[in-house]
């Protein structure tokens, strides 16, 4: 995983494709949020009740 990220970083630097950075961040973010929201861990959430 680390190698992929390093390769990708080198690719961005060499080809100056900085516009890809937001896209990659968003893909990771959406993936992370989908994984969290789909897991049963958050389904019975603990809420504040007074």
């Amino acid at each position, binding site marked *: 995983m680390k190698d992929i990220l390093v390769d990708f970083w080198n690719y961005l630097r060499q080809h100056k494709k*900085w*516009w890809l*950075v*937001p896209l990659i*961040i*968003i893909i990771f*973010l*959406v993936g992370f*949020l989908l994984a*969290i*929201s789909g897991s049963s*861990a*958050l389904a*019975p*959430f*603990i*809420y*504040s*009740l*007074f």
Partner: protein
Amino acid sequence: MRKIKNIFLVTLITYLLIELVCFVFIKTKFKSAHFPQFSFQYNYTAYDFPIAEISDHWGTWHYPGKYVEKKQCFESVYNINSYGARDKERSRSGDTGRIVLLGDSFMEGYGLNVPHRFSDQLEVLTQKEVMNFACGYFTPTQEYLVYKHLATSFDHNTVIIGILPFNDLAEDDTSFHEQDKFVHYQPYFVSNGSGYQLIYREDKLSKSTFNKAGYAALQNTGKERLNRFLKEFSFWYNIYQFIRTSKPSVNKMEKPYSGYYDFTEAQLKKLEFILEQLKKTSGARRVIVLTLPVQNDFLRYNGSGIPPLADKLKTFCMANDIGYEDLLGEFAKKVKNPSELYFNCDGHWNEKANQMAAEIVLHLLRK
């Protein structure tokens, strides 16, 4: 110069896209997360919540006046009357058939406006005044004390107390509030070997910081200002806070906590003692105890039989001439999907649950 411009552009676009994604997730998946209002509240100017520790006898109570409580799925107006109850003005003398209602935020009608709360709907169904003395944050000890020191001065012949097993048992203990950011003036009954003794967390009400002044001092620190700014002006921060506060609590448990199943014997004994005191104070009046479910309770309830807490309270109430109804079992009979009974952005009952509870209690009152 061009490089700086590019970095700025990429950063800006990244941030906006993150915000867009987080907005979509709050709207669709994380509905319980706070939804930013984009209003300049981060410079704290006013205490906008009606509840504070202002009573010498029972601590937490309402400031008289009008307040608005707003969340993604509701906007609720709090009209607090002259003696601090979220209710219309009631005269102390009146029809002897009146009902006193005690409880916490569920009985107070958190998130609901006046015609839709349990007490309002019960008043319409019974054609009798239902005087609401419930208050958010209340524990059974406080409910007993507000009855003893305030509600008894109002003519009535029935007392209804709503117990929320989810937090009423655990919060009515001196260990609760130990890590709290406020200094609390909270009453507790503590066991002294032969019985229970009433103590207060602080010896004077003036030491409490859970009030307008204490809130202002806490909210005006730089950290809290930044926290409030991010909360009201960004979506990512609210998702971060939601995940941070939700995940660890759930991961610790294989099964979600339910006070109906996970109570301790000491908690039950204390609750029974408080109910005995309430019954004694009420004299010959009718006392009815309700146990109120949260969504977690349905996850533990198997759809039939009586949960252990309800079973023990039923036996106790029968022996003490107290009426009892467990609304977990009653609600489960009436709805297939319990989420129909709760706000989708908050764990409190919605209008439907309040109406259903009022109909169940009406039936009980007519027995």
